[in-house]
């Protein structure tokens, strides 16, 4: 749930990366951490076990200040994917403003993906969050592996849904920033309907996206090419 401090003109938004174990949620955050300008990102906090499995969560805080003085803080969280950690997933998901569901593209992981997506629905409901209203994007990660669901299949299965889907190879940083940008845009489209940050403070997501990355990174990114299906998302001009 967005935290809005009118007195200090601060808004804090929570974005959660959800998905089955080993789908690439932590890899997404690690890649983003490497891409973001140090002026606008904090330390990446990870609580992990010895074999690099997320024990509790990962957290990456970001900050951007608009010329009009609005301070926008974005907190990116991941959840632990292993089935046993449901209480932590529920706790991390509380207050989320948007969710990126990171699916493993391998056909062998279809069941894990679906169990995790069902779990997302349940935990959103347990937290009093309307599954049909909260912005959700779906990232099909691991596009570099064999035996993966094809893009045509993804378009067929998800094209009519309200969820934008994106392709990614998070281990190579591909599709990672694009997923983040799509998630941010959807989150603020939703928030602007209620709080009108754009009209009242001149806040444009594009400005935040531009501020977060270096010119070199920006030139490599293409949201349009990473999108597999648009769902309820309108590409920026």
């Amino acid at each position, binding site marked *: 749930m967005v935290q809005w401090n009118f007195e200090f003109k601060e808004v804090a938004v*929570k974005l959660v990366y959800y998905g089955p174990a080993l789908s690439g949620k932590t890899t997404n955050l690690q890649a983003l951490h490497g891409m973001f300008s140090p002026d606008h990102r904090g330390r990446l906090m990870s609580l992990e076990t010895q074999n690099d499995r997320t024990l509790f969560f990962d957290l990456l*805080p970001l900050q951007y200040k608009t010329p009009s003085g609005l301070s926008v803080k974005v907190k990116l969280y991941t959840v632990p994917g292993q089935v046993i950690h449901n*209480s932590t997933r529920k706790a991390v998901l509380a207050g989320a403003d948007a969710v990126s569901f990171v699916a493993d593209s391998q056909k062998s992981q279809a069941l894990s993906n679906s169990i995790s997506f069902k779990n997302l629905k349940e935990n959103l409901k347990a937290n009093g969050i309307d599954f049909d209203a909260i912005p959700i994007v779906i990232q099909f990660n691991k596009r570099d592996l064999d035996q993966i669901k094809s893009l045509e299949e993804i378009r067929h299965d998800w094209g009519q849904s309200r969820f934008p889907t994106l392709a990614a190879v998070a281990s190579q940083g591909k599709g990672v920033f694009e997923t983040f940008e799509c998630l941010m845009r959807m989150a603020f489209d939703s928030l602007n309907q209620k709080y009108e940050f754009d009209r009242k403070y001149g806040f444009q997501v594009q400005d935040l996206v531009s501020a977060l990355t270096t010119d070199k990174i920006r030139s490599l990114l293409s949201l349009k090419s990473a999108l597999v299906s648009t769902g309820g998302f309108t590409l920026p001009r």
Partner: protein
Amino acid sequence: MSESMLDPRITLTDLLDLPVFREVCEAFTQAFHLGLRVSSESGQTLIESLEPNGFCEEVARLKDGRRLCAEARDRLLTQPLSGSTVNAATCFCGFKYAAFPLNYQFDFIGRVVLGPYRDGPWSPQRLLESQPQLKKEAKSLSGFAERAPQLDPELFKNAVRFLAKALDAFVFVNAKRLITTRLHLNAVMESRQSALKKLEAEPAAMLLDTENLAKLKGLF
């Protein structure tokens, strides 16, 4: 909509073990001959590690000296700091202070004020501008000022940089531990509630257990 235990505002007192951190501050003061104060978001002093320099003690003995010193110190502990860098300030008596904010996830949670110190020869000009009636005392004060330790500007810059990094690490590590503890407690509570629900669904089994226990108790 439920609030997350990960998101409530964290304060500096949540994150620092004050007695332990006081030792670190005192070691810093001894190493660099530089006093410091760590204060909370509201300006309350949490840790004070002073370096007597003789000069400030003399200033405090002057008429209104103690009050003026206290006002200068309180201003440093509460005035807004710009950005996340070191903010320099000069006391009414001409000695210097430096302050930097402590942030956690871009939230301001406190500050560190270093000083008073001098990084060059002392001049009474600043003192006389604010307190012109102290012209006579200014001459005697210069002797005390010259005997106060003088900090090399480069060394000072490095010392401050080191302290800021060390504090940032302290805050981060302790925040991580705090959140881990909360999540762990949450997981334990959830497990307990889940176990209790299962027990409630099996009252007959519970009753049998209780009866068996009562019989066993009778044997002892």
